């Protein structure tokens, strides 16, 4: 129908915009992995890159680190999430946490990792707070807490960062499965709170959070920026090692890097498959457990335990951010003093010009990516509603593709294509590369609110003679102002957090707060790191604050005028 003209092409365009680079990038990575890369003299297909990859010293150790930290982090995050919700369902704590989690999601991974590093390092804030009176340490102890050989610091960082995401996704899922009714039935049959939740609610909720959970696992198995800060580096986890090979001055290492990137994809695919098998086993055991009819206790221990652990995780994240801020204004902070002895704004003044330039790059890329994503998502949702389409499960998988495929596994191929297209190291390439990851999050954030709007408003407006476009601009958009601004803030935050896409698509021309903060991490000057990491954390938080405040400012005066009591 002509009424759908331009709008009807949007879903296809959107899909192409964010799937084509992933697919093309994967092909562009797999071909060199099998020796085909003409510009470097690889004209035929060979297994040599794989042979060379498996001959690399330390590959086994890299794999061990990757698998250990990836699975451990995902498992802890998942267990903490469900046990906390089971033990504290409907409590005030959950409400309070929901408020705390939203800003935590906004804080970029690198800032969380750097904050954690400042906190738990042998010379970190925690050690300073208890030294020397409790520990007797006059000098930082010589223990590898950071970059420990088992990647436990990385695991902790991942848990702190992914917990808010999974918690909020699960809370959203709870509303869809009518958890209250299920719980009420189970409780009235005599089940304790935790047993009731695990037996009557979890089976339904799990189906809803499966994809977000896979995304957490995929991320944990392939993280680069957090690993550069928290994981051991000789040898590092696989994804970091692959990045090193890509950056090796010896160009022939690109073949090994491509094979390594492809191995990274296999690791994630294998990891998700393994998790799926685990699901089946647990489901079978769970059925028997549910059928057993044991009612369970009052859940007091679970409540205390999970509350304590989750609060510790939140506390670590918050204290990490505070220590970033503190270091950014520190002139002198001797070990083991609990606080800096001299404070000044010198660090900020010294780095102001450069920081301002880097901040504007970050802002511009983030705003552009979020705005483009918002337009595309609104167009898709509006098209979906006008044509009565519903998002199928398969489409949801497509949406999650960029979140499930490890970045390092396809960004190299995408970069090669960008060079061939002559757009590498341009603003367009930078924004586009961010868009791949911004789009899914904006869609997931806005989709539910958009569909939840009572469709009779639109029907009423149509029957009053308004054309569909007028209904969109004058009815739907104003009524959805809050979720729209929130989705914009989410998109912006996701863009700020991007590390690898900025490196690859930016071709070294663009420096954002994230690449700068991660780059500085190796240097170890805490004052400078403090400045950039704090800015990096601050920017998304400001975006969320603006998204919350703007509707009030926009609607405020007009509403107050309208609320004026009618003259009698």
């Amino acid at each position: 129908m002509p009424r759908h003209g331009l709008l009807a092409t949007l879903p296809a365009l959107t899909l192409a915009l964010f799937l084509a680079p992933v697919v093309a990038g994967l092909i562009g990575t797999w071909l060199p992995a099998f020796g085909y890369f003409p510009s470097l003299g690889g004209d035929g297909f060979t297994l040599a890159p794989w042979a060379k990859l498996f001959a690399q010293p330390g590959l086994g150790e890299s794999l061990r680190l990757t698998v250990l930290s990836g699975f451990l982090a995902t498992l802890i995050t998942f267990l903490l999430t469900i046990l906390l919700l089971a033990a504290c369902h409907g409590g005030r704590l959950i409400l309070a946490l929901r408020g705390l989690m939203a800003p935590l999601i906004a804080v970029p991974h690198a800032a969380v990792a750097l904050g954690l590093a400042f906190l738990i390092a042998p010379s970190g804030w925690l050690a300073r707070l208890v030294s020397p009176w409790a520990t007797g340490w006059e000098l930082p102890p010589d223990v590898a807490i950071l970059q420990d050989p088992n990647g436990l610091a990385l695991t902790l960082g991942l848990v702190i960062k992914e917990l808010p995401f999974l918690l909020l996704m699960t809370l959203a899922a709870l509303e869809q499965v009518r958890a209250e009714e299920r719980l009420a039935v189970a409780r009235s049959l005599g089940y304790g709170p935790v047993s009731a939740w695990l037996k009557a609610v979890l089976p339904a909720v799990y189906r809803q959070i499966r994809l977000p959970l896979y995304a957490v696992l995929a991320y944990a198995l392939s993280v680069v920026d957090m690993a550069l800060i928290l994981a051991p580096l000789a040898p590092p986890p696989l994804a970091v090692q692959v990045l090193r090979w890509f950056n090796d001055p010896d160009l022939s290492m690109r073949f090994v890097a491509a094979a390594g990137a492809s191995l990274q994809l296999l690791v994630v695919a294998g990891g998700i498959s393994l998790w799926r098998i685990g699901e089946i086993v647990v489901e079978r055991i769970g059925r028997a457990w549910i059928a057993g009819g044991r009612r369970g206790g009052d859940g007091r221990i679970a409540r205390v335990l999970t509350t304590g652990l989750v609060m510790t995780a939140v506390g670590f994240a918050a204290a990490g951010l505070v220590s970033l801020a503190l270091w950014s204004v520190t002139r002198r902070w001797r070990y083991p003093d609990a606080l800096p002895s001299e404070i000044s704004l010198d660090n900020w003044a010294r780095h102001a010009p450069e920081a301002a330039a880097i901040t504007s790059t970050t802002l511009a890329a983030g705003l552009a990516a979020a705005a483009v994503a918002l337009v595309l998502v609104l167009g898709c949702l509006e098209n979906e509603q006008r044509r009565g389409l519903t998002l199928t499960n398969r489409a949801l998988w497509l949406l999650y593709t960029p979140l499930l495929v490890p970045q390092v596994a396809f960004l190299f191929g995408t970069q090669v294509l960008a060079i061939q297209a002559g757009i590498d190291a341009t603003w367009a390439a930078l924004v586009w590369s961010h868009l791949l990851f911004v789009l899914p999050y904006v869609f997931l954030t806005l989709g539910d609110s958009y569909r939840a709007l009572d469709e009779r408003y639109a029907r009423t407006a149509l029957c009053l003679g308004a054309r569909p476009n007028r209904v969109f601009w004058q009815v739907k958009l104003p009524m959805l102002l809050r979720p729209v601004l929130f989705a914009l803030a989410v998109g912006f935050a996701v863009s700020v957090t991007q590390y690898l896409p900025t490196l690859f698509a930016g071709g070294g021309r663009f420096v954002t707060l994230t690449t700068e903060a991660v780059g500085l991490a190796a240097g170890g000057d805490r004052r400078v790191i403090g400045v950039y990491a704090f800015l990096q954390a601050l920017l998304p938080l400001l975006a969320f604050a603006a998204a919350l405040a703007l509707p009030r400012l926009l609607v405020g005066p007009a509403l107050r005028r309208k609320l004026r009591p009618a003259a009698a």
Partner: protein
Amino acid sequence: MSVIDLSHEHGLTLSRVEIALRAPGRARRILGPVSLEVPPGEVVTVMGPSGCGKSSLLALICGTLAPALSGSGRVLLNGEDISARPPEARHVGILFQDDLLFPHLSVAGNLAFGLPASIRGRRARRERIEAALAEADMLAFYDRDPATLSGGQRARIALLRTLLSEPRALLLDEPFAKLDVALRARFRAFVFDHARAQGLPTLLVTHDPQDAADAGGPRLQIDAEGHIPGGRPADRGHRPG
């Protein structure tokens, strides 16, 4: 002598209307076939248990049938077949159980949304809206936020908004169901009086027998299978004139 039956020229006419669920394989009929005539100024009531497709019938008439459903048959308004038109071009007003006033617009903003753009000029539009409010004894509410109004007041504003859009027929989807008993009778009278005064063919769906009694017009019953026992009510309801 005219060969055209004038009674078909005015009012709302449904001719062998059916609604089916689009299902893979074969479509499953959920309502109809229904044929009926609603002359100008008359209120025809359709009654039936919930889930029998009453609301879908109204959605079909105003062109907002859910995409999972398919409709067939013809809908004629004042002699014109409107079945293929988009909802905004049908001039069919509808009131739901909820008033659905737009929360981001003031009372006047809501009414202005309904007022056709053909009424030009800020002043002229304001006068039309004020006249409508004055008629409902609600002039003082011009600038108010709909959220500050009582249920009865909101319901009246919703009707005024629909009437200001200059509909040629009025559909009522249980608009009295959520009001308390005393208010219900008054609002019902308010709606029916306006519909009759403007000569609007009005189709009411409800399961409250009192609604039907007050409407005074012909009544037809849909059973749970979507059938209408008793044949064509249009024959009974039709009054020449």
